[in-house]
């Protein structure tokens, strides 16, 4: 079936280094993608989104890259800080559908 999945369930990164979190999707009709951050005991928080007519979008210390050829999405976090430790989810949407499809998440741990 159609799904959104993540390559790595856990990732540990030294403080100050850059981190990359990956996500694969199988629905070629998906045209909107979102990254969420979920800290322990909290609800998911929107980080950044991208539409399928773009390859790259930058925010504050975060960059999302979209490769439609291989159906791959990544989240890059620059100069990681302890506050970046969280679970990161990707989500996808097809053509303005009411529902999002979420991946299982990657736990990012920042090592001091």
């Amino acid at each position, binding site marked *: 079936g159609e799904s959104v999945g993540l390559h790595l369930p856990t990732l540990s990164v030294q403080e100050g280094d850059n981190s990359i979190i990956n996500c694969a999707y199988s629905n070629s009709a998906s045209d*909107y993608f*979102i990254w969420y951050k979920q800290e322990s005991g*909290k*609800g*998911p928080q929107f980080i950044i*989104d991208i539409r399928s007519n773009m390859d790259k979008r930058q925010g504050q210390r975060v960059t999302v890259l979209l490769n439609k050829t291989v159906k791959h999405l990544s989240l890059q976090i620059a100069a990681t800080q302890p506050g970046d430790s969280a679970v990161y989810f990707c989500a996808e949407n097809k053509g303005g559908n*009411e*529902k999002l499809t*979420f991946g*299982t998440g990657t736990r990012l741990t920042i090592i001091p």
Partner: protein
Amino acid sequence: NAGVTQTPKFRILKIGQSMTLQCTQDMNHNYMYWYRQDPGMGLKLIYYSVGAGITDKGEVPNGYNVSRSTTEDFPLRLELAAPSQTSVYFCASRDPGTGRETQYFGPGTRLLVL
């Protein structure tokens, strides 16, 4: 704006008891959602609503009911609590008029059924 608020934050239920999880948003969003998140897992959609008076089932609706009498409120009802309903429940909302499908989440309700 307070955004999406949920009550209670935490609740312990006995098997067979019932309860209502409250969700309110003050952003005038038409779309609202209920998810459950089991430990170490992703989000599973229980029910959603695209406007007052309209609700629809998600991926895991069994054992739950919802109603949407106003734009602001979207309560989730558990009629006969079972241990399998032990989870963290998140409510979310979205404004379809923005052209962005981003959903905004509440802080969650942690439910333990014993």
